């Protein structure tokens, strides 16, 4: 098992390296004159040259990348070209905001999607039909459109919730839950409808397996078959579904935070992208890839624990 984890961790690091190198190359070779962008159209060529020197842009790309990598490994991701704030600091203050929201939504999605999906698979009938229709509706409306309508209806028109969710940390947990309700709902609706649908198929697939029939023939009760055997076998598929949703949510949450004016990764990423603030963009990409790698590693470990065959091979 330790060897298995080490192997996965190793391949995760390779991915991190490859993605960082590709992103770095992409960003720094195609952005046109970065210094001119920063200084504006009025800057003289001398000023531009000076700025380029200051940012280290006169160095070859490879040298710059490895300098960045060396700094990054020691925790220094550079500083924003516009605000001069160290990227690592911005990430440190913003990641908790985003991640609490993402995890709150993910936990709710996991619970709701699993309950609804399993119920649809086992009961069939109307529950199943509702899940099918909900999946189509959920697939048709992007999460941010749901967010926009939640704000418009529940916050602006009816005034049930605050329209912007920025609150001070001292406001207490109740106010926090209150302000987070709408963004989390906007984040989770697509996840629940899509997740329930996929978990339903995974469970039905397992229920039709030969060994389930054999277990029945041995006199094992339906409940035990469902909870001990079927759900366990369907769990890897369910986990994959949820991990893909979490990864997708890292993008979706950017828009949701923008809608609800939350001081998370979203506004940072959007501002940096609009200004081509490359160190910040690099930082955002790195944070994303790290989260993805950690999530995938956790899923692999859980799957290894659930399925003895994976552990062996």
């Amino acid at each position, binding site marked *: 098992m330790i060897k298995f984890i080490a192997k996965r961790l190793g391949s995760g690091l390779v991915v991190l390296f*490859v993605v960082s190198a590709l992103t770095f190359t992409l960003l720094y070779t195609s952005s046109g004159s970065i210094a001119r962008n920063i200084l504006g159209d009025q800057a003289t060529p001398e000023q531009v040259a000076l700025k380029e020197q200051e940012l280290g842009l006169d160095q070859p790309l490879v040298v710059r990348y490895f300098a960045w990598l060396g700094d990054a490994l020691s925790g220094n991701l550079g500083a924003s070209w516009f605000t001069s704030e160290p990227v690592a600091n911005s990430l440190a203050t913003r990641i908790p905001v985003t991640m609490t929201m993402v995890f709150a939504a993910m936990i709710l999605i996991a619970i709701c999607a699993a309950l609804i999906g399993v119920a649809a698979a086992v009961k069939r009938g109307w529950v199943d039909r509702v899940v099918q229709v909900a999946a189509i509706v959920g697939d048709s409306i992007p999460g941010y459109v749901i967010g926009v309508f939640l704000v418009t209806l529940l916050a602006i028109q009816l005034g049930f919730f605050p329209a912007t969710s920025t609150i001070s940390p001292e406001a207490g947990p109740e106010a926090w839950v209150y302000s987070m309700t709408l963004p989390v709902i906007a984040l989770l609706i697509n996840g629940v409808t899509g997740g329930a649908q996929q978990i339903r198929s995974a469970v039905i697939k397992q229920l039709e397996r030969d060994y389930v029939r054999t277990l029945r023939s041995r*006199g094992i009760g339906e409940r035990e078959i469902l909870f001990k055997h079927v759900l366990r076998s369907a769990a890897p598929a369910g986990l994959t579904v949820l991990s893909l949703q979490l990864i997708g949510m*890292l*993008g979706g949450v950017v828009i949701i935070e923008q809608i609800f004016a939350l001081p998370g990764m979203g506004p940072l*990423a959007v501002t940096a*992208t609009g200004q081509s603030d490359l160190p910040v963009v690099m930082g955002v990409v790195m944070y994303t890839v790290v989260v993805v790698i950690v999530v995938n590693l956790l899923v692999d470990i859980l799957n290894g624990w*659930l399925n003895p065959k994976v552990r062996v091979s």
Partner: protein
Amino acid sequence: MSDSVDSAAVAAPVRTGQSGTVVRSTVVRRLLRNPMGIASLVILGSIALLAIFAPVLAPFEENFANITKTLAPADSVNILGTDSAGRDTWSRLLFGAQLTLLSALLCAGVAIAIGLPAGLIAGYYAGKFEAVSNWVVSILMSLPGLIVLLTIRAAFGPSVWISMVAFGVLISPSYFRLTRTAVQSVRNELYVDAARVSGLSDWSIIARHIFSVVRAPIIIQTAAIAGVAIAIQSGLEFLGLGDPTKATWGVMLSEGFKNVYLTPTLLLWPALAMALTIGGLVLLGNAIRDALEDGEKIKHRKKKVHAAEDAASASASKVARKTLAAVEAGTEHHLVKVTNLGVGYPQADGSIKKVVDDVSFHVDRGEILGIVGESGSGKSQTAFSILGLLPDNARIVGGTIQFDGNYTVAPGDERVNQARLSKLRGKRISYIPQEPMSNLDPAFTIGYQLVTPMVRVLGISKDEARKRALKLLTDVGIVNPERTFNAYPHEVSGGMAQRVLIAGAISCEPDLVIADEPTTALDVTVQADVLDLLRELQQRLNIGVILVTHNFGVVADLCDRVAVMQNGRLVEEGSVRDILRNPKEPYTQTLLASMLEGKTPMSMLVSSQKEPVA
């Protein structure tokens, strides 16, 4: 629907024909009969037409701004009102449709252009290309789309086309995986081998055989991907990172959200357009999938038929139970008695397709009954109705089953009496399946799967059950029972797994064992061992056995009596000796004649037996 089913049944070759034209035309017809399919085609068709004729239909240029008339409500000039710059919402919506649909097409096109050939090559040739592309795919799939698009935007500036090409690249793995899997499954099919042997080049094989397999899944995938592309591109524009000079639904949504306090309706139109388009695509994908699977309709209709039937049969069976509470007189001593049994599956047109029809036989204690027939003769369905393990949609359409003097299917019942059978299953009736590996849960050790039924059914302790399980494993001829006990199913061989399943079947000392082709999946040498084992156990424990098989050799070897089935009916029943020596039915004669045993070899193999064959 009933037309096509009937004609297919009459013209038998059409039913089996996988020729592209027949399948395709039925798929299109099914799609057009499905309300979901029609609705999606109508929605998408109208949006496409509006987009194509946008320059004609739109009263204003997309960026024409009347700054004296901002955020105006709908009137005769601006039928949906104007935005904060005084631009006409209806015109912008039409031009937005144009750009949105084109960008979605571009994205899907790029994704297909990369994913399809890569998937074909990786699936057909495998090797290094597959390994490398799998690795690339795993990286691409692990990146959240919007974050990648933000990076692309930071690098290349705002352009719908660049971001959609990038997203196409990013999402190409979905086509890659779909194509690769389809190709892999077809690659080793016999007809592809045949094509190869007959000298067709790789590319013509791919074009002819493999492309026809992936075509439909690709259409479904494209519908889904176009929807995702629209959502993500609009999301980017909603964030204000799109091209501000272009009218798109995302830009309009963003504009609407900025003015949400003043004119909330500005939000409604682009959101509605997006939801309709994406929804239309989702529906289209689902409808095509349904048309291909032809599953949904059957389910719906079946339910209606059922409701009516349930009501009718419920009252009928109540009457029947009162009058026929006792089992058929004079048959109480039989262990199992099946009388006029019929099993059917509801079909799309509301009819019920019978797979077992008017089958009667009985089994006594200490007796082995063979049920013989070709595949599809209904022998397994008969066995499963005795066990009460028919699929959910199966119906008992006639007859009764009684076990040890009690009805498990009473006269008039539409379903097997699960309340009664769940008490019998495992304890008094048990089952040996056909395919050893798929009948053990891969996630649990063999020991666990032997011990638990004993604990549940016999109510003994785990230690006691463990002792008995080890003893059973020895009994079924496993040399190292401890090791097998602790092994997972994938760690033992097929023959060993079948022995484990036999051990499981006899673990609770049943009165009746139903063995469904217990040796078919095994090597010939192992087959003989398993049959010997079955006979030995049957004699020692004096149990009744129903042996379902297509092999008369097994019947001759093991059974006391045999029942021959064909097309769901019992054609002949009697003692093994009688039937083997003197088969009355032509079908039985054909079955016997088709056996290899006892035939005169056509070549000179006999003489070569003396010297080793090279």
